[in-house]
């Protein structure tokens, strides 16, 4: 066989042998753990087989490809737990990997090797027909006489029995199977290399008189242990030395530099003895210069053009597209971009996967392309270029693109994520799902790709290299995957920071920007969302993590005046005293007084000084972005990464250590792990998602309702909220837009006049701020639009908080809640409108009054765990003339319903309740024949579609939003009318 490119072939051989060297021990470990499958391990072996298959396919080594494909199939089944690895299966796999190794070592003749004796049993295992059909004994032949393809006649040896538990039909004839067992079983477990060392220990086993068949499995398992041990040194010796080709001129320049270094050293030694400082300085400079040049030159020896990897892709694409009957062109840009050799080697596999994916999944069939107006032949573009000290590799195709929704759905179907998690994800996050292990978009497994290994291999490999993968995709237009890689792994530029008196390094690849928030702005810009602190950065919310908190140090701050670190006593960054506001309770004020009398003056005074400013390093990892709060920002430096000892491996927050100029050590921070430690879980860092996730988590924990609120202000100092679902729209207006006509405030709005109201028209709150730029929040009440005047900042948040319906309750205000440390008054828009425009409701009330003719008020059972909402809803009902029986949870409601079954003519229930939730309550009611006709209306704060569907499934008649009084009442009337 002739090979066009020797270098690629050599690369394949080296790589495959490395893979195989690992496979053996891993297989043995898998065998040992039995049904208790270690997924990572199986994955590793699986990927190794996959890589070999891929490489062999490209090189045209069909026999190797076929054998590795068969092994991969079996491993795939083990991985998906369809198959429990037992010694026999592992044995077959081991034999196959040995055969692979022999074939790869003699790659020129590999295609002539007969591998059916390995492939057949593998396929039999995969088909589940292994026990019945596999002519396994054939396997032993190459085992005992390794290179000889001679086989024993199959007839001589009865089929090998396999796991009896799995194949109960086999049980009746164990005696037939038994006799040859002791002879065969220990043998296949021995690799030829280990045979000699092994002989002593196994001899007893071998010549032991007939062992019952059932027993043989256990010695086999035990035997594998010494074999694994005996194997390791052999394997290590087999591993080829990696070599590199270096340009002679580069070597020459290295020689010259080394010579210069020696000269400078001599000069230095001479100077050291004298007092000639000026000369010493010159020598120092000289050495500095030479060292940097030397470093650069040495780095250059490791640099190789990325073309070495790229060059094989035209062929890959051509062969694949032929196989798949697609028409695909490939364009390569930037072959000359150079990367460190280790990186070049490591990106080979990921790139192959990505290109194969583009060809297999990305580009459509020619007919399909023609239908949507694309040219017949697809285009795959491979591009490499430098950007900001990194190398970017882009693989783009003009295929069908990735459909985030489809990916999300598939992830849910595979049980990788729950529907709830999906709901919180942005489109980008959904596309990134493709990187989850065990995820594959291809409906069926092909030889080319689509086992769900590709993308997670890519991610794992690139993560190890300190690279980033980013996918942009447009459905129908194509996908671009860009990989950012460091030029080299040995030396990386870092930002040095200081916290708690120690220096830390943050790799520049993770660094987005440095942010310093002056002391007087901290209060405005740092806020709390749930448990997390966030900072407003150009209109976005950026989650903050305090480095000292994450790694468990005492909080300190850097005192510029005294040049030292001091202990920080603040609990929260946003815990800074602001302007006095009547909203703060007396308790808070008293506490503050106490604080002010505290003996440590420096802590108190600090809020005015510069040292109170926040230093934030904005870092990004993957698509997550957050701010790391540190004490001091120092220089940026190029550092050499050194690994940490194994006793510190458990400290996940560090990527390693480095030695600084002064000889001390600084730890290198691993920003993605820091985020993980700090429980910053969002895949994207899109802050909305993070907030929602936090809120959702809390709601689940506390069994409380989530409430979406629109937060606004009327005066500068008082914060208000209204349920978001009542808001129709928000308009920005100028003060001059408001007209006062006939004692009423109106403005022009959509061809008509919009009545404008203010919270302080009704409620006793501070008057609307006298500023020019106002907001109008438009509501629909009693089928008419009404605008509420407000000022910013406005924000829509989703929270689950306790609503206090006593302290601040008054006409127009239904209660208050603490949101982001601000007391927020919840506006009752109906009450406001009702008070101001009672005439709007006349028609309605008449309709309500005419409802009940038989003199007895109908009774409604109301199940709701929140006092606030229960009182609200109850007041709607009683206003309209109904009697209400209240229940705090579903269980109580069910008991009350049974007690008063004649009385109650309707059930209104909340969904989220302790003990028995609304769904369960409805189910219970529906399953009881006594209550067949009773209408059930479910109340929710957020009418999520799946909740609605679930509710309908258990028998909820209608869904309403808790504070949407009008619709709720209309529906109550409607059902009551039906009943009577």
């Amino acid at each position, binding site marked *: 066989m002739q090979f066009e490119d020797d270098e690629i072939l050599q690369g394949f051989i080296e790589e495959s042998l490395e893979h195989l060297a690992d496979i053996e021990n891993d297989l043995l470990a898998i065998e040992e753990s039995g049904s208790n499958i270690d997924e990572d391990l199986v994955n590793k072996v699986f990927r190794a087989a996959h890589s070999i298959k891929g490489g062999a396919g490209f090189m045209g080594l069909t026999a190797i490809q076929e054998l590795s494909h068969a092994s991969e199939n079996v491993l795939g089944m083990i991985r998906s737990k369809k198959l429990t690895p037992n010694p026999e299966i592992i044995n077959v796999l081991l034999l196959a990997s040995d055969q692979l190794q022999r074939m790869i070592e003699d790659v020129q003749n590999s295609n002539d090797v007969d591998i059916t004796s390995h492939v057949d049993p593998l396929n039999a295992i995969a088909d589940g027909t292994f026990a019945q059909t596999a002519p396994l004994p054939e396997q032993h032949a190459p085992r005992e006489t390794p290179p000889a393809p001679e086989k024993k006649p199959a007839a001589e040896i009865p089929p090998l029995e396999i796991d009896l538990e799995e194949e109960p039909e086999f049980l009746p004839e164990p005696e037939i199977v038994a006799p040859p067992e002791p002879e065969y079983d220990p043998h296949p477990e021995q690799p030829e290399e280990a045979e000699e060392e092994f002989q002593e220990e196994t001899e007893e086993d071998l010549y032991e008189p007939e062992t019952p068949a059932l027993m043989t499995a256990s010695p086999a398992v035990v035997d594998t242990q010494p074999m694994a041990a005996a194997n390791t040194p052999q394997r290590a010796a087999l591993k080829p030395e990696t070599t590199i080709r270096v340009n002679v001129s580069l070597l020459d320049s290295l020689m010259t530099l080394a010579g210069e270094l020696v000269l400078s050293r001599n000069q230095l030694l001479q100077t050291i003895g004298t007092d000639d400082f000026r000369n010493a300085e010159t020598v120092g400079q000289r050495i500095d210069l030479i060292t940097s040049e030397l470093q650069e030159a040495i780095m250059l020896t490791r640099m190789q053009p990325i073309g070495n990897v790229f060059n094989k892709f035209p062929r890959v694409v051509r062969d694949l597209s032929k196989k798949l009957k697609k028409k695909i062109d490939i364009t390569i840009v930037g072959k000359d971009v150079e990367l460190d050799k280790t990186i070049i080697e490591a990106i080979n596999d990921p790139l192959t996967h990505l290109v194969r994916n583009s060809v297999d999944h990305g580009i459509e069939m020619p007919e399909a392309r023609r239908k949507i107006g694309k040219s017949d032949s697809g285009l795959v573009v491979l591009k490499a270029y430098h950007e900001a000290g990194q190398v970017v590799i882009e693989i783009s195709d003009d295929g069908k693109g990735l459909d985030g929704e489809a990916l999300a759905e598939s992830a849910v179907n595979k049980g990788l994520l729950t529907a709830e998690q999906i709901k919180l994800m942005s489109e980008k996050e959904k596309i990134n799902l493709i990187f989850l292990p065990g995820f594959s978009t291809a409906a069926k497994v092909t030889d080319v790709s689509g086992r769900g290994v590709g993308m997670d291999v890519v991610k794992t490999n690139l993560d190890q290299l300190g690279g980033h993968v980013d996918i942009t995709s447009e459905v129908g237009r194509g996908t671009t995957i860009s990989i950012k890689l460091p030029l080299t792994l040995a030396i990386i530029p870092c930002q040095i920071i200081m916290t*708690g008196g*120690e220096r830390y390094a943050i790799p520049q690849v993770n660094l987005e920007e440095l942010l310093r928030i002056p002391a007087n702005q901290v209060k405005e810009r740092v806020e709390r969302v749930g448990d997390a602190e966030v900072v407003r950065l150009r209109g976005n919310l950026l989650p903050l993590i305090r480095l000292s908190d994450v*790694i*468990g*140090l005492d909080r300190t701050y850097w005192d510029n005046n005294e040049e030292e670190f001091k202990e920080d006593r603040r609990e929260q960054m946003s815990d800074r005293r602001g302007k006095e506001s009547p909203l703060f309770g007396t308790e808070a004020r008293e506490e503050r007084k106490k604080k002010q009398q505290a003996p440590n003056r420096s802590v108190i005074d600090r809020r005015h000084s510069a040292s109170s400013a926040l230093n934030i390093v904005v870092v990004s990892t993957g698509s997550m972005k957050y701010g790391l709060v540190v004490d001091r920002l120092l220089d940026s430096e190029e550092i050499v990464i*050194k*690994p*940490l*000892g*194994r*006793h*510190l*491996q*458990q*400290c996940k*927050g*560090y990527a390693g*250590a480095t*030695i600084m100029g002064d*000889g*001390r*050590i*600084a*730890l290198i921070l691993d920003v993605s792990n820091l985020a993980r430690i700090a429980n910053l879980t969002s895949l994207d860092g899109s802050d909305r998602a993070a907030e929602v996730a936090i809120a959702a988590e809390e709601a689940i924990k506390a069994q409380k309702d989530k409430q979406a609120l629109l937060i606004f202000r009327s005066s500068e100092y008082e914060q208000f909220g209204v349920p978001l679902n009542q808001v129709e729209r928000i308009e920005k207006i100028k003060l001059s837009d408001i007209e006062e006509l006939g004692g009423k405030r109106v403005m022009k709005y959509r061809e008509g006049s919009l009545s404008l109201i203010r919270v302080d028209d009704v409620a006793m709150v501070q008057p609307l701020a006298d500023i020019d730029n106002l907001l109008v929040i438009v509501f629909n009440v009693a089928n008419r639009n009404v605008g509420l005047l407000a000022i910013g900042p406005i924000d829509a948040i989703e929270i689950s908080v306790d609503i206090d319906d006593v302290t601040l309750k008054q006409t127009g205000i239904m209660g208050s809640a603490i949101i982001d440390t601000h007391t927020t008054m919840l506006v009752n828009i109906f009450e406001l409108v009702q008070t101001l425009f009672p005439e709007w409701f006349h028609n309605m009330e008449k309709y309500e009054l005419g409802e009940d003719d038989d003199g007895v008020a109908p009774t409604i059972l109301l199940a709701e765990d929140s006092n606030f909402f229960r009182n609200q809803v109850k007041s709607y009902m009683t206003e309209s003339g109904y009697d209400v029986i209240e229940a705090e949870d579903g269980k109580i409601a069910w008991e009350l319903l049974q007690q008063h079954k004649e009385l109650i003519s309707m059930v209104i229930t909340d969904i989220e309740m302790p003990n028995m939730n609304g769904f369960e309550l409805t189910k219970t009611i529906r399953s009881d024949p006594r209550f067949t006709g009773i209408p059930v209306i479910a109340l929710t704060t957020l009418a999520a579609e799946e909740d609605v569907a679930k509710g309908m499934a258990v028998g909820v008649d209608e869904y309403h939003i808790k504070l949407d009084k009008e619709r709720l009442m209309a529906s109550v009337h409607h059902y009551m009318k039906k009943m009577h």
Partner: protein
Amino acid sequence: MARETQQSTSKNIVELATFYIGDALCGMNILKVQEINKLMKMTKVPQAPDYVLGILNLRGQIVTIIDLGKKLGLGETDISLDPRNIIVNSSGSYVGLLVRKIGDVVEADMKKLEASPANMRGIQGDYFTGVYKTQSNLIGILDIDKVLSIDE
């Protein structure tokens, strides 16, 4: 047992570097010791196990400093009492063992090594390969690789 017999056949006399952990006199094969230092300025590693005092730069190598007293359950070594650092190379990485005091180098005949008691002055017997009796003292031979393993 296999280990002892192996040692006695290959090498009988071993030089032991001895040191004190708390009150216990311990020893290890001197060939395992790379050097012995005074305590240098270290970089603390937040989140590290409590027995790791920090890391330091030893001529370009990052060395993890372990308080042997704490690791073996004898309590912290008092840093003010001028403790010593025994630098060893264990499984490929450099580790500094902080001990209270360095003792003499003792020539020991490994044939005379005795099985270690279950507990020696508060240190679990598991950590010793054996006990060596000199005229005046008992030296516990520490199995450094075992002490430094991170199975817990």
